[in-house]
């Protein structure tokens, strides 16, 4: 046993035969995981594969049920988070674990605030202490701003800066780009390049293939709590990697189908999704998938929420099949046949302490599962939910499982499934595949294409240009709250689309 350690002197993180059990689930099953000094190591796998669990064990947020863990040659089994941080390990969480009402500087220095002689926090020094770490990762975040006033993308960058305060030798990033816009993503990559140059070991969890190949040296693939393999990136093509992750061959990344597009279904005129921007207008036709792209903060979600009546609507006229709609609240939208799958699924789309069954039939309860508008028809409800679970390949032990215990991908399927049961005529998807693995994405794409094929109108909001190009018939580009460009998918290339997303103008694009 001891010989294995001596063979690899440069192994700095060595987890052997780690197992972790949660009620009813084997999260990790005898996993071996090794990271070498100074390398960038990608940890990939579908949702629920055990990536986050393994990282939380490294960071001592969880303790393993069996197995051994050595970090930098030291037995980390009985350490707590503070000791791990002193060893030089920092974890940047997928969740934004920030204090919203504190300033950026205070959040960055959380736990190590400088104090004066009286024991009071020295605000001035706090700022000076935080500034260089923030500067590492971003130059346009106000260090005095409260975190609650920042965009999600900026908040994520603050968590990166906070991790740096511990002067880490090992940096774990759990899907850092899932919440970042294009510009911040580039800033993060530049930062990671600098980290590599200064010899910091990086463990990088991501669902984005291009990022993994851009940043990492080696890849470890987890599937269903087991380690599948560890290999150098050069030895693994993207197709092979994806194959290892899902365990089955994906024929096509995205199921693009030719849809037959009909009359105008929804016409939006003079909508003010954001306060300071100009009004926007567009149409959606039967059987059409209309993409809305733009970086974070461009106002994509605000359009969705304005149509859905989730925020007090800002003037404008919405016509459904030629009839003028007056939507004051989400209930009005649902009654009119509009469904919204929101971006923050845990906060906005799910009752996380309730069962899959109750979540899924919530929107359609009155329309489909009620006798006399009062009693719930339980048998029919259960049948419908069972069918959905099978159709959408949801990973769950039963239809009574609480939503909070499901993986991110399955949660999203529950939210989408909820609206499919409501049989609406218009579906709005806001970043439906965010933080979801390849196989889960595929299932969701298929659900969306099926909807359009059956004649529904779909508005597909996304930050991932690839999926927009693969799915949508028409694409609207938003920039700073304005509709800057309408593109027909067949006539546009990815770099052209990106140019508009990043705020490029028409006349300059061709000349220069």
């Amino acid at each position, binding site marked *: 046993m001891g010989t294995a350690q001596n063979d690899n002197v440069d192994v700095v993180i060595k987890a052997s035969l780690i197992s972790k059990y949660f009620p009813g689930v084997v999260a990790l099953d005898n996993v071996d995981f090794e990271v070498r000094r100074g390398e960038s190591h990608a940890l990939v796998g579908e949702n629920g594969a055990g990536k986050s669990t393994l990282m939380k064990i490294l960071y001592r*947020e969880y303790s393993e049920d069996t197995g051994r863990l050595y970090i930098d040659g030291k037995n980390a089994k009985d350490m*707590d*988070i*503070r000791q*791990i*941080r002193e060893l030089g390990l920092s*974890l940047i*969480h997928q*969740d934004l*674990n*920030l*204090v*919203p*009402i*504190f300033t950026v500087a*205070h*959040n960055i220095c*959380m*736990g*190590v*605030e400088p*104090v004066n002689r*009286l*024991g*009071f*926090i020295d605000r001035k020094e706090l700022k000076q202490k935080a500034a260089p770490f923030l500067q590492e990762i971003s130059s346009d975040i106000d260090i005095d701003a409260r975190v609650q006033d920042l965009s999600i993308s900026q908040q994520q960058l603050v968590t990166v800066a*906070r991790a740096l305060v511990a002067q880490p030798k090992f940096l774990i990033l759990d899907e850092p780009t899932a919440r970042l816009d294009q510009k911040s993503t580039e800033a993060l990559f530049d930062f990671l390049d600098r980290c590599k140059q200064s010899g910091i070991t990086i463990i990088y969890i991501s669902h984005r293939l291009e990022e993994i190949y851009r940043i990492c040296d080696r890849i470890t693939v987890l599937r269903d709590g087991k380690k599948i393999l560890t290999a150098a990136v050069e030895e693994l093509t993207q197709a092979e990697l994806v194959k290892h992750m899902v365990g089955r061959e994906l024929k096509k990344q995205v199921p693009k189908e030719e849809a037959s597009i009909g009359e105008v279904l929804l016409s939006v005129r003079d909508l003010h999704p954001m*306060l300071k921007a100009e009004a926007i207008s567009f149409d959606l036709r039967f059987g059409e998938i209309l993409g809305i792209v733009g970086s974070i903060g461009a106002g994509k979600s*605000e359009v969705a929420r304005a149509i859905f009546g989730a*925020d*007090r609507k800002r003037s404008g006229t919405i016509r459904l099949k030629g009839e003028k709609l007056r939507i004051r609240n989400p209930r009005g939208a649902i009654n009119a046949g509009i469904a919204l799958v929101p971006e923050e699924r845990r906060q906005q789309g799910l009752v996380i302490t309730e069962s899959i069954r109750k979540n899924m039939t919530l929107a359609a309860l009155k329309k489909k599962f009620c006798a006399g508008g009062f009693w719930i028809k339980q048998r029919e409800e259960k049948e419908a939910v069972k069918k959905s679970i099978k159709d959408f390949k949801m990973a769950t032990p039963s239809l009574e499982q609480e939503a909070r215990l499901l993986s991110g991908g399955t949660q999203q399927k529950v939210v989408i499934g909820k609206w499919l049961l409501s049989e609406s005529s218009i579906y709005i998807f806001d970043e439906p595949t965010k933080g979801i693995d390849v196989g889960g994405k595929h299932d969701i794409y298929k659900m969306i294409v099926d909807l359009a094929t059956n004649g529904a109108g779909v508005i597909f909001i996304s930050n991932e240009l690839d999926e927009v190009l693969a799915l949508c018939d028409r694409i609207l580009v938003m920039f700073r709250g304005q509709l800057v460009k309408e593109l027909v998918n067949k006539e546009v290339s990815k770099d052209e689309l990106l140019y508009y997303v990043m705020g490029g103008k028409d006349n300059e694009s061709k000349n220069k």
Partner: protein
Amino acid sequence: MNQKTNNWNKFIANYGLLFAFIVAIIVFSFWSGHFLSWGNIQNILVQTTSLGVCAFGLTLIMMMGEIDLSYAGLTGLIGAVMLKMIMAGYSPIWVVLVCLAIGVVSGLCIAILVVGLGMSSFMVTLAAWFIYMGLERYIGHGVTHWIYKYDESILQIVQGHLGPLPIPIIVMLGLFLLCWLFQTRTRTGQYILALGENIEAVKEVGLKAKLIKGGTFVAAGLIFGLTGLIETLRIGGSMVYSGRFLLVYALGAVFLGSAAFKAGKYNFPGTLLGALFFYTIINGLTLNAVKFYYIPLVQGLFLILAVAITTVKRGEIEQVQF
């Protein structure tokens, strides 16, 4: 234009309660010439002390997203214990120390059950209230005893002056300053607030969230012990269930305070204002010989009015910011 309205709304949301308080003072002072006399102001402040002190402890707890109702029973229990000790002839210093120690032990027990064993703070402290009520009856047999009959020296704590101010006022304002500075300026104080906002943010950087939480329960226990001490001395004896009125008033003061200065967040200046608000209304109405049953009625109306101003205005702020 919008920015202007937004700032104005923010101003109303933060200072609406203070404004209502000032209006009440102006109305009362016109109604009765005696209202703004130094003697009466001292009167209001002294009456507010036990509520104010208690509400400061509660603010700490509620700030970190928990609740503690034990003070409602603890006050009566401490009153009974105090009288037993005074009757047995213990010196005032021992009496004070034992009272405060009871508060600390109470806080410690709650901390172990809530933080250590993960029980619900509402249920645990509700149970603690009942237990303390039972203990109070067991010790005091439900009989009212007056302190002056046994030992007057301890009463000097509340009757004495330090400079121009009666000691209870100094205790309350001193504790206010201490809590306020502690919470807004020290690291631990800020972590208590952070616990209520996002406990994961505290845990993630390796801070001992449970220790901070437990410590806060103990500190609040100490403050509740002080509440029992002041209340018993102020009444001048142990009356059955003497802390019961505090239950609703302290919660009211903290909630009302959360509608002031930092709209929507618990804060110590707000709590102090909330506590003063209640007793100002009681005092102003009593001074003008308003029938006693109108007093809660007027208090309730003021509560709704104050919260209405801030809530409505806050709603508009959120809408503007989106």
